[in-house]
């Protein structure tokens, strides 16, 4: 069959559509999908930021209150570690806000072509890779500061070791999530290369 014949066969479906649409059903689905999609994006983006800020505020408030009220069994260093931990959490939240702003600003750089869309998808995937890496390695200083402040309160060394093991395992397992984002990014880059090269 010649290519022109294929074109004729292809054109035959213009007069005889392959499907029928339930228009009312479609309209309802569009509205609900749109609402759901924007909700999921907002929630997932803001959850990390809020979690860091709320935890930071909580640690800061409780340490300050206990210290002022003389209720704390913390030694001077214990309180210091808790304050450092709170500041670290605030700084992490600010850093996530910064890379989020950069990502949103960057999204206007891409045109609406397939290449531009793939470029945008790669940039989003890169953001996810970066974010998951930060979340992963951030667990180590947070775990260390938590363990140090707990050890200063006179808790058993086994408890402190348990805390360290907990954070280390969380960092290890979050490597899986990081791996998924990395794989997705590589697939997109492969696709973009395929588009660009003959």
């Amino acid at each position, binding site marked *: *069959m*010649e*290519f022109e014949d*294929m*074109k004729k*066969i*292809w054109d*035959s*479906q*213009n007069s*005889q*559509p*392959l*499907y*029928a*649409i*339930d*228009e009312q*059903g*479609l*309209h309802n*689905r*569009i509205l609900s*999908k*749109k609402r759901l*999609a924007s909700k999921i994006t907002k929630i997932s983006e803001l959850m990390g930021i809020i979690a860091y800020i709320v935890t930071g505020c909580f640690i800061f408030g409780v340490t300050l209150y206990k210290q002022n009220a003389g209720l704390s069994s913390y030694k001077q260093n214990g309180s210091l570690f808790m304050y450092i931990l709170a500041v670290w959490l605030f700084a992490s939240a600010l850093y996530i806000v910064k890379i989020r702003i950069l990502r949103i600003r960057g999204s206007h750089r891409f*045109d*609406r*072509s*397939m*290449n*531009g*869309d*793939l470029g945008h*998808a790669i940039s989003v995937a890169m953001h996810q890779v970066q974010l998951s890496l930060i979340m992963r390695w951030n667990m180590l200083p947070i775990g260390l500061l938590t363990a140090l402040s707990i050890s200063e309160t006179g808790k058993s060394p086994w408890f402190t070791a348990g805390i360290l093991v907990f954070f280390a395992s969380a960092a290890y397992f979050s490597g899986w999530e990081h791996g998924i984002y990395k794989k*997705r990014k590589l*697939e*997109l880059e492969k*696709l973009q290369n*395929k*588009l*660009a*090269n*003959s």
Partner: protein
Amino acid sequence: MTEKKQKYIFESWLHQYQTLLFKVVRAYAFTAMDQDDLFQEITVQVWSSIPGFRQDAAVTTWLYRISLNTAIKWVRKERKYNQAETLGPIDLVLTESAAQVDDRLAWLYEEIYRMDEIDRSITLLLLDNFSYKEMASVLGISESNVGVKINRIKKQLISKSTKTQHHGI
């Protein structure tokens, strides 16, 4: 843009250009549920794209651009529906037409479905008579690159059709 106007444009596009959307759906999704899912995904993107349409391109070019980009992203998603997994009847917004589909058209779709996502897009645009310039703009690559890809795809399709005819199908 008011939602009323957006709805009006959407409905008129859907009536006028539904065949274009069906072609993309059929080329990128295999089962009825996947086709329905992809069709919904594309229509959501088309709906959202309406305020950004500046009329500097033809509506068909715009729609192909939106629907092909959506289809490629959709293919990348981890999970697809498997008809065997569904427990009960599901309300689909898309129902296959009762009319008999030409065997040669079914063969063509099968061959397109076997291609990778990029070649599928180029083949759809090629079969719908888009110029090299329009294709280059939809894909975001140079016209010469489009030309090279088209030659390869044409050769591949013609050779496969010859083999199929030799086997008496």
